[in-house]
């Protein structure tokens, strides 16, 4: 079974965490919507395929009309309420999706991290940038991932397939580096 502290020969370690996650649906280019979200989250609404961060709060672009706010659990309730208030009168949907997804963290040498996902995701991992988020396919499931800093890769998938994702990631991380 999964041992969160397990470090692979390749130096890649996999851990999980359970922050709050709020799905926001609205027109991301709409100034009023933007202002409301920025006011509550303290973050600028991201550009396509971007994730922005401030402290423990992150705001990820999930589509032209969808964003994901990731925040500490203890700030969840207040933030949900604040968003509902700030967006009152706007056409927007705020949904608590904190329990719908599992968040994985992969830490280790940069090349090993990139190659781990290059085995599973149809993404150009050589060109993948810090601050970029990709919604894509992890082998047979939907996933999204980003790198906030060098040596740390974060990935979310749906809760029901977390075991599958964990098996995939552990396996792929253990296979080493293809391209140095």
């Amino acid at each position, binding site marked *: 079974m999964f041992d969160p502290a397990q470090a692979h020969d390749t130096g890649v370690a996999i851990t999980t965490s359970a922050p709050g996650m709020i799905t926001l*649906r609205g027109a991301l280019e709409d100034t009023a919507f933007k202002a409301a979200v920025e006011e509550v989250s303290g973050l600028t609404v991201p550009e396509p395929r971007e994730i922005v961060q401030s402290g423990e709060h992150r705001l990820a672009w999930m589509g032209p009309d969808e964003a994901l706010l990731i925040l500490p659990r203890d700030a969840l309730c207040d933030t949900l309420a604040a968003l509902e208030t700030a967006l009152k009168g706007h056409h927007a949907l705020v949904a608590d999706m904190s*329990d719908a997804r599992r968040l994985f963290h992969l830490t280790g040498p940069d090349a090993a991290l990139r190659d781990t996902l290059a*085995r599973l995701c149809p993404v150009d991992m050589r060109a993948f940038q810090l601050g970029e988020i990709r919604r894509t396919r992890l082998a047979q499931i939907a996933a999204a991932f980003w790198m906030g800093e060098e040596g740390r890769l974060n990935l979310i998938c749906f*809760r*029901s397939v977390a075991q599958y994702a964990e098996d*995939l990631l552990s396996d792929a991380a253990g296979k080493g580096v293809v*391209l140095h």
Partner: protein
Amino acid sequence: MSTRLTKGGRRIDRSQPVTFRFNGRTLRGYRGDTLASALLANDQMMMGRSFKYHRPRGVVASGAEEPNALMGIGQGGRFEPNQRATQQEVFEGLEAESQNHWPSLAFDVGEVNAALSRFLPAGFYYKTFLWPRAFWKHVYEPVIRQSAGLGKAPKDRDADTYEHYYHFTDVLVIGGGLAGLAAARAAASGGARVTLLEQSAHWGGRAPTDDDATDQVEALVADLSKMDHVTMRLRCMGAGVYDHGYVLGYERLTDHLADKTGPRHRLWRIRAAQIITATGAIERPLSFAGNDVPGVTLASAVRDYLADYCVSVGDRTVVVTNNDDAYLTALALDRAGLSVPAIIDARQEGGGDLAEAARARGIRVLTGHAVAKVTGRTRVTGVKLARQTGEGAVIEDIACDAVAMSGGWSPVVHLWSHCGGKLNWDDAEAMFRPDATRPPTGADGEGFVNCAGAADGVFAPGEILQAGAAAGLRAAGATGHPGQMPDLAGPSERPLRRANPLEPVWLMPASATRALRAKTWLDYQNDVKVTDVQLAAQEGFESVEHAKRYTTLGMATDQGKLSNINGLAILSGALDTPIPQVGTTTFRPPFTPISMGAIAGEARAETFQPLRRSPLHDWHAAHGADFEPVGAWRRPYAYVRPGEDRHSATAREITQTRAALGLLDASTLGKIIVKGPDAGRFMDMLYTNMMSTLKPGRCRYGLMCSENGFLMDDGVVARWDEETFLCHTTTGGADRIHAHMEEWLQTEWWDWKVWTVNATEQYAQIAVVGPKARIVLEKLGAEGVEGEAFPFMSFQNHRLAGIDSRVYRISFSGELSYEIAVPAGQGLALWQALLDAGAEFGVMPYGTEALHVMRAEKGFIMIGDETDGTIIPQDLGLDWAISKKKDDYIGKRAQQREDMARSDRWKLVGLKTLDGSVLPEGAYAVAPGHNANGQRNVQGRVTSTYHSPTLERGIAMGLVLNGPNRMGETVEFDTLEGGTVPARIVDPVVFDKAGEKQNV
């Protein structure tokens, strides 16, 4: 005999001997040997037997095109059949066995087929086994199955692992010969990301052997290795080129190693902006009688074995050719001190500079001559010499133990052609070449594949370098990275040899007698001879694709790499139609077969398929759940206790639930939030019933149809607030229905203000079912849930066991029932609290089968049982759920079509067997008479059928012609055993019709 010479061998390391086993014998080779070269070094010339006639066969080629030397490699979990000995590198402990023989390679019973060859002509499968008809199943097919196939299928589970690797590149070069290296070098000069794949273990292709270009190759490799933006892979074949620059690369990581640690194969899934195919060319055999006797080898392969492994195929080698290249072989053999009794050149005028050189060394050169026949059975003993222009009258016997043949070159156009690149026939060189003006095109209509070097029909080394570099620059330029022409010194500076043109020779001698033609092989692996192709043409198989399938030419594992051009030339001759008009068969990926493991990649064992697990999955597993697949989910079918089977466990669960209290994990049901000012309008279009009138806090059961009118999903809708609805979908329907909603919103009603979120995974949902359900809720802290304070088809928020919960009072069982939704992470805590609170009532979890039986007792339909994609709600008596007030809903118009509206559609009824038995699943109700196909007429079918522990008899629903108008009538249902079972048409609701249990 074939043997290892004492000195030399570019690829072998004589300081590192290895031992391996072949057919149980221990043999020795050197590190760097291929299995083929090592076997030849041990005088093992016979390496297999052919597919149809079981003729002895030796190695013909030295690379990927090899049709004969196919081996079973490895043992047990690492056994794999049909591996080419010419590509398999030897390592310490390698196990190899030859194929398609019984009982042994040297003595084979199946060889009798060869004696019967005149009774096994082209198309014999189609001709021979037609009659008597019954023989096919009992005699012919079993016998054919016994003898079919080359290698044995592995029996054990694959011991190795495999992986995929997604790779992105500007320019992909396939083929690491001189052209490919030059192309990569030029392409990389402007900063483009370049990837270079070479299927063999060595860079340079034929250049080191044929052009003395080792230094040039090493310099290019050294240059490229220094560049960070260049990726180079050996033992990695470009397997296929697909649309939009998608390419599969097949890398063999451990096949050449004794240490099998790590993935065995890696499948490169490459996106390339531009592709260069520098895949070289394959030498063609010549078609003369006995050209399949072990020892008859391609002239280029004879050179390769000599230069790369210092192995001679024979002591006395006759060279036979229609072009100048084979003279290189004669010269190389002569220089190595081996005997070349004669060079037989079919051309009257003979060769150019190389022929002069051969004569100068005293080699006998015969022009205008041909091999009439090769003598020998398991190895060559000699050739019979004839004139090329005649029928094969023998002039002289020449003793030899090997024949080196060259019929010219066929550019490897496979990868160029995979995605639609077109070919031209080059009459002068007698070969198909890529037509650069008709390349495979991408989404922008521009070509994305370039071809360079021998693959493009360019053979002079200097020209190859220039052409490769030009292709590299062109490709890089197209990706926005223009480069500069690199300095390419080396063979390009050497004077060109004067060569005489090739003369197409498709049959040797030109007018060979039938007896000779019947021993002249075109396709070695599938045993197709010149006479077979001629017979196919004679019998009317004029299309090259038809002739291929009729004769099996080019249908073996090598896909006719050696045979296709020779075969279609014979067909062209037989049809008296020029070769370009006959055309080629289609080139399909992969270039050579790739392993199933590489295709599967990580999808094996635990990760074969993603299983979706509910938040309560582990609890279920720990408490006897017998799981069943529902979509990708695994749901408990029943919780089986010791001494029970699934059936008795289900009966216990139902009885307990109806008597007191049961719990169901309903977390897998789809939960989609729909919100916005236009949400009500949108809901009215999605569902057949009126949803916009639903009051906040209330629930309504709804039906969803496809635009063709067919019922696609159902579920309870709750109106959370004025602007927000929650749509429950079926377990398997959540993703599909969410996509359906988004499709309509994004493509048709893009201006409606509606957002959706699929929140299925956010919630654990638990159904608390049975007469004691309300008491348990109250025990956990719910207040004000009595009677009309919390009416049926409404929801309320409560704090249960300290968890914020949304409680829906809905029922799919006919019992008093609440479905409680909590954040998924709280699901187990709530479940445990419910079990504790319900303990005094004997609470039991129940599975999907109990759910199904209880809903069937109530006559509730199930998507997937009562529906199958052809059923409309009206068929199921659900007219009450179709709004007459609405102008439109998805599927409304379709339901007005004549066929949907006709009165004699089969309709839903209950079915009660007269003897109380359970009707067979899917059984048909028979009707009098037979249809045009002689089958019984039918008038209905069973859609759901169960044993009801409540009623202690079988219950069923089904669709029956005019069913609702035939209440009380008896119809007969077919059984699998034969005979019929009578059942009475009844009301589908067989339990608590008045709903007294639910409405308390």
